[in-house]
């Protein structure tokens, strides 16, 4: 690949790719997301490669190992493009039939398509399947169209045109204003306006500034970031480069998981290809702007996803958070201005610059714009990675997309935000997905892990589980967090065993307040949130376990 050194060369290269490709050409997208690989999709991929060779269709059909398609529940997933025929629960034994029937014969294999459990209706195409039809897949949709290791595939779907626009048609200030106007809010948990954060870093004194992708995703039950990052790494990278240009940063860091080999491989490949193509490194596309990225890894502790802890880890030290009297956007890695955003936040940037802030702000609610990726899990029929516009109600997510509760049971609660989030009961199902609305009812969106609980869920046990997780994950630097969580765990543990003592609930509330107010970082500050939420909505379950003891 030759290095490109102007916007025109990029467009020329894109045209060459597009003109060499027939839009009607058949391609098989074999999902290689974490869950489908877990279900054995590597075997399906091999079977396609062999069978296509055997039936001599190699010239007519492409096979791609793609990122996560989203419908993990029904994996291994296979999508035949361009018609978007979705085959589910595919095994290597099904492959010869798919190849001869669909690829060679143009007929659909009925037994492998989705059947609506309510109506019995079959849906072969993505737009006929409720799980996909009710989503707006602006971020994750390209996953079925591109091979994450191919720069050409990303360029074919319009990739890096936003970067070119930012570099050659806008000044850094203009890019920043566009992101502010779009009201892009951070997807990592806080929902802080990304534009304001960028502005702080941009205006902070110093020439050396850093931008960081937080791809740690340590929250149990959250898997959407790795689905996006593994499946479409260039999209995150493009957002990061645009952000670096707006902020005035020459050096970036990707901080991500070490325990997911495809993720690590795809990121590294994307960086190499982007460098070779002149989209990363010295003098990007001949614009005079230089920027490069290095990759760092989390090696197994939840707190290193916290921004100041993460920055310590990049410095090669233990990830202990520091108090944020001074924001990390002013003083972060090596005390230099460091702007950190989550994977999904960065992935949003290219569409804001490409399609404009007005287009972007047309999606969502008044104060939460765009779409949100969710990891739908728990006792729900259709688990998987879901993308919906802000404003979609929880009911729509649970029933229209999620297909309702497993085994015909009743929904008891929806939990957002993992160990630092909260659960809300069934009566809140008509709440729209919105940063502020969800915080108000006590289930802040967090990073987007959405756990659905049925009538059998034990809310004391769920709280105990989260406190147990956080006891192990607290870095131990500050006492209110380290000891506060441990004491809460002890008390919730005995309530769970039916050994609660009178006054325990009040004591829990007191510890929760103190550890929340006095902890250094958001791990300790929000550790008691699931507990507070549980006491707000499911207090009777706690009280029951104390009263029974007294009666005895």
């Amino acid at each position: 690949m030759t290095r490109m050194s102007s916007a025109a060369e990029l467009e020329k290269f894109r045209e060459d790719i597009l003109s060499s490709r027939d839009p009607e050409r058949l391609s098989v997208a074999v999902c290689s997301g974490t869950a489908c690989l877990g279900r054995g999709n590597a075997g399906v991929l091999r079977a396609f490669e062999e069978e296509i060779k055997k039936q001599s269709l190699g010239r007519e059909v492409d096979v791609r190992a793609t990122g996560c398609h989203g419908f993990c529940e029904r994996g291994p997933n296979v999508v035949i493009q361009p018609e978007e025929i979705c085959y589910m629960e595919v095994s290597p034994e099904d492959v010869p039939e798919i190849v001869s029937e669909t690829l060679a014969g143009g007929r659909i294999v009925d037994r492998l398509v989705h059947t609506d459990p309510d109506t019995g209706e079959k849906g072969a195409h993505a737009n006929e399947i409720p799980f996909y039809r009710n989503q707006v897949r602006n971020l994750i949709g390209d996953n079925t169209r591109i091979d994450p290791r191919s720069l050409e595939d990303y360029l074919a779907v319009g990739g890096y045109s936003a970067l070119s626009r930012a570099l050659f048609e806008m000044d850094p200030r203009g890019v920043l204003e566009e992101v502010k106007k779009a009201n892009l809010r951070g997807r990592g948990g806080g929902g802080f306006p990304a534009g304001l954060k960028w502005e702080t870093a941009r205006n902070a004194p110093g020439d050396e500034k850093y931008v960081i992708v937080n791809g740690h995703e340590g929250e149990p039950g959250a898997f959407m970031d790795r689905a996006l990052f593994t499946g479409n790494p260039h999209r995150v990278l493009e957002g990061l480069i645009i952000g670096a240009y707006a902020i005035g940063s020459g050096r970036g860091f990707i901080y991500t998981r070490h325990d997911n080999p495809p993720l690590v491989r795809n990121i590294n490949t994307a960086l190499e290809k982007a460098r070779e193509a002149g989209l990363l490194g010295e003098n990007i596309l001949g614009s005079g702007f230089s920027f490069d990225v290095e990759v760092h890894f989390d090696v197994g502790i939840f707190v290193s996803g916290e921004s100041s802890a993460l920055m310590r880890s990049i410095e090669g030290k233990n990830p202990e958070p520091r108090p944020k009297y001074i924001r990390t956007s002013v003083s972060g890695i090596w005390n230099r201005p460091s702007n950190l955003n989550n994977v999904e936040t960065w992935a949003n940037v290219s569409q804001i610059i490409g399609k404009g802030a007005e287009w972007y702000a047309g999606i969502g609610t008044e104060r939460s714009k765009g779409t949100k990726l969710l990891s739908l899990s728990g006792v729900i029929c259709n688990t998987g990675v879901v993308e919906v516009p802000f404003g979609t109600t929880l009911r729509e997510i649970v029933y229209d997309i999620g297909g309702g509760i497993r085994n015909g049971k009743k929904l008891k609660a929806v939990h957002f935000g993992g160990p630092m989030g909260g659960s809300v009961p069934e009566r809140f199902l008509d709440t729209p997905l919105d940063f502020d609305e969800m915080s108000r009812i006590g289930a802040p969106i967090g990073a987007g892990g959405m756990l659905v609980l049925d009538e059998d869920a034990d809310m004391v046990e769920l709280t105990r589980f989260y406190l147990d997780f956080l006891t192990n994950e607290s870095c131990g630097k500050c006492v209110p967090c380290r000891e506060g969580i441990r004491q809460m765990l002890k008390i919730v543990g005995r309530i769970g065993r039916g050994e609660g003592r009178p006054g325990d609930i009040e004591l829990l509330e007191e510890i929760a307040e103190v550890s929340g107010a006095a902890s250094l970082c958001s791990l300790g500050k929000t550790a008691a949130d699931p507990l507070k939420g549980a006491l707000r909505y499911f207090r009777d379950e706690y009280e029951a376990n104390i009263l029974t003891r007294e009666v005895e």
Partner: protein
Amino acid sequence: MDHEKVDQILDEHQGKPGSLIHVLMELQGEIHWLPRDVLMKVGEKLQVPFRQVLQTATFYKTFRLEPPGRHEVHVCTGTSCHVRGGRRVLEKAGEVLGIAPGETDAQSRFTLVEGNCLGCCTLGPEMIVDGEHHSGVTPDDVEDILKKYE
């Protein structure tokens, strides 16, 4: 242990204290655990006090200070696996192997790990042996799955 490989990794990062985590990761990837004498060498080469090397090596859960068994059994204890009964799977695995999470059996056959969420929440409860996923595991399945690994 491949001393040459260890030296090669250390030489690449000589005098760079900031590379500590990277070096420990690479070393563990190569020799599967971090013996004390190797950690001392790391300190010397990277010019990081041994105290700090130990601090980092013991802080992160990924780093092993004891040799692991031939097979790593990872039972997911993430939220989604938990609400679907992952805890019972972990208990059963401990019972079958006769060890607690974090331990290795006397024959060095299995190491049992209480696993972090690997993001396969849709497949839970999950038991992952040497990277091979077993999904929707019930306590009754555990013994049969483990039998396959010698």
